[in-house]
């Protein structure tokens, strides 16, 4: 196991290098000259040259790449071009609200989706099953924007049960006041496709021979479902779950924008709007790192669930 982890981490080095190279090439070819953007209206030759020198853009490309490599290795991406804050401090302050929102969404959504999916899979073919499938299909066909706007209008503005938007510095305040509505809407949007996917995982497992053996042993249906089937059905469920983990860091762009939550999602939108290259670079590298780490974690979790998995 340890040998496997060490080997996998070692394999990440060339992958990360590839990501860096790609990112560097893209920014230099496609991104255009950032000094034009930064110079804004006072576009003079001296101003441009000054900005270039300040950003290190006058240096030869290999040297610029080396600077980028050093930034990645020290995880210090300099200062944001638009706010002049250090990038690391900026992201540090943004990751908290995002994780709070997306983490609780994921936890609540997964538990709910698995519970409902297990129930309808057990009663497959029944009215409940058909009804849930029908509702899920309809719910999937409606845009997430509709849920957000309708939720803000009916539940917050008309109903007055939640604040329409906002965020505070106190975590407790956030948990009690500002989080519930975006959390609720986020869970509802994600629930329908999850239920349908998890249901199919359960139904497939229910057709296997070991379920017949479990029944022939005299086990009751809830035990068969929650002990024998659940653990086998978790294998595809974990796959889809782990794939979504790196995006936790990205935050929920729409929810954060609509509810004024100062998270990563909002920051990404703003950074792209302002061509804030250091911030975009940092986020891209962080996402790449997270994807690789979560992939490794997925494989290890597989091994824990399914003893047949061999880590090579």
């Amino acid at each position: 196991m340890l040998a496997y982890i060490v080997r996998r981490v070692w394999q990440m080095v060339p992958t990360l290098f590839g990501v860096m190279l790609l990112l560097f090439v893209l920014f230099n070819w496609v991104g255009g000259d950032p000094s034009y953007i930064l110079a804004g209206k006072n576009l003079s030759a001296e101003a441009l040259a000054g900005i270039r020198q300040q950003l290190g853009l006058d240096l030869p490309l290999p040297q610029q790449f080396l600077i980028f490599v050093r930034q990645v290795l020290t995880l210090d991406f300099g200062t944001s071009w638009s706010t002049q804050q250090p990038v690391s401090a900026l992201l540090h302050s943004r990751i908290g609200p995002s994780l709070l929102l997306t983490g609780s969404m994921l936890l609540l959504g997964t538990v709910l989706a698995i519970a409902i999916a297990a129930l309808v899979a057990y009663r497959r073919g029944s009215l409940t099953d058909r009804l849930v499938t029908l509702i899920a299909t309809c719910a999937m066909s409606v845009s997430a924007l509709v849920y957000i706007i309708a939720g803000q209008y009916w539940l917050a503005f008309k109903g007055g049960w939640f604040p329409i938007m906002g965020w505070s510095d106190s975590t407790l305040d956030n948990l009690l006041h500002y989080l519930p509505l975006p959390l609720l809407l986020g869970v509802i949007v994600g629930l329908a496709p999850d239920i349908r996917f998890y249901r199919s995982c359960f139904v497939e497992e229910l057709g296997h021979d070991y379920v017949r053996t479990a029944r022939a042993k005299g086990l009751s249906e809830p035990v068969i479902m929650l002990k024998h089937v659940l653990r086998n059905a978790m294998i595809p469920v974990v796959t889809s779950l782990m794939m979504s983990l790196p995006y936790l860091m990205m935050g929920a762009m729409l929810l954060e924008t609509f509810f004024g939550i100062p998270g990563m999602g909002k920051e990404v939108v703003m950074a792209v709007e302002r061509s804030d290259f250091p911030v975009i670079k940092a986020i891209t590298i962080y996402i790449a790192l997270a994807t690789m780490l979560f992939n490794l974690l997925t494989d290890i979790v597989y091994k824990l669930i399914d003893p047949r998995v061999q880590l090579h």
Partner: protein
Amino acid sequence: MNPAPPLLSVRKLRVSFRDEHGHGAEAVKGISFDIPAGKTVALVGESGSGKSVTAMAITRLLPEHGCHIDPDSEILFGGRNLLTASRSELRSLRGGDIAMVFQEPMSSLNPVFSVGEQIIETLMLHTGVGRKAAQQRALALMQEVGLPAPERKMRSYPHQLSGGQQQRVMIAMAIACEPKLLIADEPTTALDVTIQQQILQLLASLQQKHGMAVLFISHDLELVGQFADEVIVMHHGSIHEHAPVRQIFEAPQDAYTKALLRCRPHLASRPAKLPVIRDFLGDSCYFEPPQRQRGYQTDDRVILEVQGLSVDYHSRHGWFGHHSQRAVDGVSFTLMRGRTLGIVGESGSGKSTLGLALIRLQQASAGRVLFEGEDMLALTPRQLRDYKRRIQIVFQNPYASLNPRFSVAQILTEPMLLHGIGCDTAERLQLAGDWLEHVGLPRKALAKYPHEFSGGQRQRIAIARCLTMHPEILICDESVSALDVSVQAQVLNLLQALQDELGLSYLFISHDLAVVKHLSDQVLVMQQGRCVELADADTLYAAPQHPYTRQLLDAIPQGWPHCIRPRPA
């Protein structure tokens, strides 16, 4: 003396299934039989005869949707009608008084729990003992069913055990709560012959020791003859004959029983054509065809010569290590034109790998494969193309080896297109239809899809697909192993007829020695990748030299009176 009441009585059992279009099909047509306490009753029939449905009906494990049991049916066990029993009554019976063992031990065990845990679960459920006591009992059970190193095996997962060991675990689980009735549904069909013999012996000794009744379900009459007290022969959902085992074998009354007894190839005779069920069910009397002589002749020409073929499998191991395992180890043989070489061995003996290496679907690590003098292993992919056409393979599982989304026409014309046979689609379709008729299927089958055919018919399609390329060598990798004995006889007859007509040479890979003897001129016995014996078929079977060959021969089910346990006179 008034006989004791039977342990289980099935009365007028009638089961029908409805498909999604609402069409009903009766799977079991009002059958009645008794199982006396402590006796073994065998239910024999082909697939679709309703034997498994009957077993499932006893434990009420049939699917609830689309399955209908006639309300007049009764299954009496200990004075209770199981068909009207409540769910909780059924649950306490299942695994308690009535236990089951299934066909596929690998898929019947839950892959993510240790085998010890799965036995302990049954014990704790029915006997109400604590975990510690259950653990002790599970250990004793695993010892009783003959699992080596039971302490270590307790913590093993199903995939870490061999097929025979998995079935032993299933049996340990079944006998855990001292059942009165053990239902064994084809418990040895998925196992090797030698393992099959061991499992049967185990079941027989456990039955005597615990005084259980056993309902043994099988498609193989010979196998059942060694083991059962009474035999029930089923066909199309009804009972054709129900008699003590001696009578079934010595004086069968029913034509279908006679047919089942005859259509399995025997070691003692080799008819030019095997009898099939239809030969017995008609009005005309069946006459045994003349015997066929086998063996390489001096004027035979060599078509394929294999010299020292080896195949290695590689896997990663530890920090930097690589692990390689020799699956085939220096095997040499010669195949003559128009003859058959049988390759025999158990699972893991490397016989399938050998077949794959010959057509380069598996990389060989050493040796030469001379096809009419040309080394196939040294050819470039371009040169290999023509040789690929001339050497074709028919695989074991007819359900998995045909693409389910291709029509039969597509399956048959695709290889012709690849190898440039036939100038246009119309001609290729014409040829495909011809080949279908050749293998005994109607031309209109071209428009159908694989799932619309039975196992035997699918194997015919697979053979037709090979024939479209006019091969000279056909590799049959366990091609009849998944088929019922009666269907197996039909496919074997087809293969023989094609060899006589087209002069094909066969490499016939199988674990079934009787089938191999029927079809082969020479036989190669493989064990752990090595060839342990290679001889003329008749010589090898008459005087086996290697102990392993003798062991394989001893394990062939011989039917009555070669029973594997002492029988009361």
